[in-house]
């Protein structure tokens, strides 16, 4: 049983840690939204794993709240970023950022090579 505890919490913990890394390094706001969403899902999964392994049903209502919070959070931030569109070109894309930051970084890496 101890092995199961360590294995389950280890897997969840490493997953949450990697999601935190993505939350930290960004590079865009939407990456952070996706990372936060995943992090909250992992937290809910950890609560459910605790409830299941300990046979402890007291944390189950918290699960409902956490999953609700993940949805409301990601949708509201996505709508907030969508509201930042000020004007758009004819092809239906806003004129905010010229290209994805990842694409720019990849291109500069290729140019260095």
């Amino acid at each position, binding site marked *: 049983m101890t092995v199961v505890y360590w294995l389950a919490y280890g897997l969840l913990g490493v997953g949450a840690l990697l999601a935190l890394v*993505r939350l930290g390094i960004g590079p865009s706001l*939407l990456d952070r939204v996706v990372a936060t969403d*995943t992090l909250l899902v992992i937290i809910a999964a950890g609560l459910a794993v605790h409830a299941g392994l300990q046979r402890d049903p007291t944390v189950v209502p918290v699960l409902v709240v956490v999953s609700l919070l993940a949805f409301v959070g990601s949708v509201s931030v996505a709508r907030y970023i969508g509201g930042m569109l000020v004007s758009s070109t004819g092809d239906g894309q806003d004129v905010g950022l010229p290209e*994805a930051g*990842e694409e720019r970084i990849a291109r500069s890496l290729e140019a260095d090579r």
Partner: protein
Amino acid sequence: MSEVQTAADVLAVVLLLLGAFLCLTAGLGLVRFPDVLTRMHAGTKPQVLGVLLIMVGAAIRLQGWSATWMLLLVAVFQMLTAPVSAHMISRVAYRRRHVRRDRLFVDELRTGEASDRLYRGDEPADAPPEEPARALVESRREDGDLAPD
């Protein structure tokens, strides 16, 4: 009481471990993948399948109807809300150009000169399925952009 005794307990523990493993893969994908859409693809693994596996495992272990209904509520809620939030995030990601276009083979949402899309939405309902790569080559050949081979 919290020990593994029966076959149902073993099944529940296996389901919980599978769900936890999916959470690990989500973290790995979030760090490794190149742009918002692919990271969403990785991050959605535990959102649906992982949560379902863990809810089933916890419901087997908890053995109470009140807890089971609440876990079912969480699972149904996740399956209802995951597509909505994913749709909104990916739409904003496309419009804000957080999508790496050099990694896309076909971009059906793109409009204007460089459009990859041939059907305009007014084709008959029994039109043949769109085959973007071949149809694109054909249309460009018709336009004279591409020398016929």
